[in-house]
């Protein structure tokens, strides 16, 4: 799961002046023709840096995102949910594995990326800095946060960097099952007892603001990223992604009889765009910079897991045992 919201800050394009103009022109022409850039191909430093940053943040979002839902695996009600949630969260960890590998093709090791995550140097999706108080919060994430992630990821899968696109194709296929699972859970809450309906309504009230933040600051205030759009690193503006999400999922939420906690939310029939109360972007910045309700806890859990597993990783480097790949 991933939102592109915090990926792109102001881009300094000064370094482009140092690139070989002929190579740069050929690179841009290839992207223009719809070709994919592969790891051994020439690429501008800025492209490499931005892709590492984006793929790395995406990978971090997957492993941190496993935590708020993961805590509900041991509490999921009934066999069906328990098994499905285990498989779903496992997928997310698998996505991290795929994405770290994709980022490694650009020259940064998985170990270094994880180090940068736990020291706070690199970021992950803001939405995971909020708590999951009830089962319904977990269902909200499985359905709607995954839905938002799919909107972003389907767009990014059409980007220009081959290894990232291929990882995203597979990720999107798996996420589409998550979406069905999450939707199914929410339908059961919606059509269940008054208590179950109330649980989801409360989750929706808690998660709507983080969900609107998920796609990143409004285009009016977000950093200019034209060069990244031209290079097909960024495939759509934050507002476009947010609008697409609202267009697909607001009707589904309403159909289930829930109230979205924004009285100004409506689709403008003339522009075809959704209108809503402007999300609180100061709150968004505060949470990204460490001030959210769960930032400390999420990183602490990750730090502890890394520290506890260190001896295992060290022991793997020793190869006293001649290991033969099993044929099973």
């Amino acid at each position: 799961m991933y939102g592109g919201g915090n990926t792109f800050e102001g881009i300094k394009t000064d370094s482009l002046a140092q690139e070989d103009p002929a190579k740069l022109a050929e690179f841009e022409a290839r992207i223009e023709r719809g070709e994919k850039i592969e790891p051994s191909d020439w690429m501008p430093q800025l492209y490499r840096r931005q892709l590492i940053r984006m793929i790395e943040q995406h990978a971090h979002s997957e492993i941190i995102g496993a935590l708020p839902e993961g805590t509900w695996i041991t509490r999921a009600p009934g066999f069906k949910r328990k098994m499905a949630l285990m498989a779903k969260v496992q997928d997310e960890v698998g996505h991290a594995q795929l994405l770290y590998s994709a980022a490694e093709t650009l020259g940064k090791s998985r170990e270094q990326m994880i180090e940068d995550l736990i020291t706070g140097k690199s970021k992950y999706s803001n939405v995971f800095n909020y708590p999951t108080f009830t089962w319904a919060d977990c269902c909200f994430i499985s359905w709607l946060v995954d839905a938002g992630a799919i909107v972003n990821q389907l767009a990014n899968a059409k980007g220009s960097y081959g290894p990232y696109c291929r990882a995203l194709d597979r990720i999107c296929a798996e996420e589409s099952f998550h979406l069905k699972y999450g939707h199914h859970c929410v339908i059961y809450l919606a059509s269940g007892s008054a208590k179950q309906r109330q649980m989801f309504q409360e989750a929706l009230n808690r998660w709507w603001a983080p969900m609107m933040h998920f796609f990143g600051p409004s285009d009016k205030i977000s950093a200019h990223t034209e060069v990244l759009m031209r290079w097909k690193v960024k495939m759509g503006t934050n507002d476009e992604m947010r609008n697409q999400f609202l267009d697909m999922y607001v009707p589904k939420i309403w159909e289930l009889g829930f109230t979205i906690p924004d009285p100004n939310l409506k689709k403008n029939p003339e522009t075809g765009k959704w209108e809503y109360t402007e999300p609180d972007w100061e709150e968004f910045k505060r949470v990204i910079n460490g001030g959210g309700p769960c930032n400390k806890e999420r990183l602490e859990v990750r730090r502890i897991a890394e520290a506890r597993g260190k001896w295992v990783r060290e022991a793997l480097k020793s190869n006293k045992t001649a290991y033969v790949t099993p044929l099973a």
Partner: protein
Amino acid sequence: MTFALKELLYKMADDQLILGHRNSEWTGMGPLLEEDIAFSSMAQDKVGQSLALYTLLHKLGESDPDTMAFTRNANQFHNCILVELPNQEYDFSLIRHFLFDTAEALRFEALTHSSYEPLAQLAQKIRGELRYHTLHANTWIKQLGTATPESISRLQHSLELALPYALGIFEPSPYEAELMAAGIFEGEQALQDKWLVRIESICRQTSLVLPDLKVVTPVLGGRTGKHSEHLQPLLDEMSEVFRIDPGAEW
């Protein structure tokens, strides 16, 4: 006969459910991503196996699987104590996985010959899944059991800690003679003898020293509902949402 058969199915179903639950606690916490994913796969297999076994029980007249798994108290569970112990560090989880799944692989191998046809068929399927679990366990025990002084001493310590509980897997049952006579199950002692041979064979390929089982006192009681203090909190957590409204569909 039905009572003896149910007792056998209950202890196997409860073992799978509780260890599956424990394995799933590694999700997001594994020592490396690949192990996180591996423990999750094994957790899914085990919980799925428990569901299949509870379904056999349901066909024999017991409650539905969700009710059995999510509403009984600890003293109604028949799992061995080994599987309910907290995960602790990775070395303990790995050793438990090795000791338990080696026994499981042999158990379901034997059950493919059971005269109770539904169980024989299910055992065939479960045996196939367990091949990967033992392959995983053996690979890791051989690697970590020979690698660094720290990894060897951690595994050795956990092996000594887990062994008395592992013997509890084979806690004898008063109804066993009946099952053996009917050709349903070959009995716990036969299983333990084969288990020991396999465990010894893997340990010999490492720097680990398997303690002499004659001086290890088995920790028993799990099969008759006498558990450690760890099981009830696990069950309370597992049923937390289910109990909000046991009549509801989730």
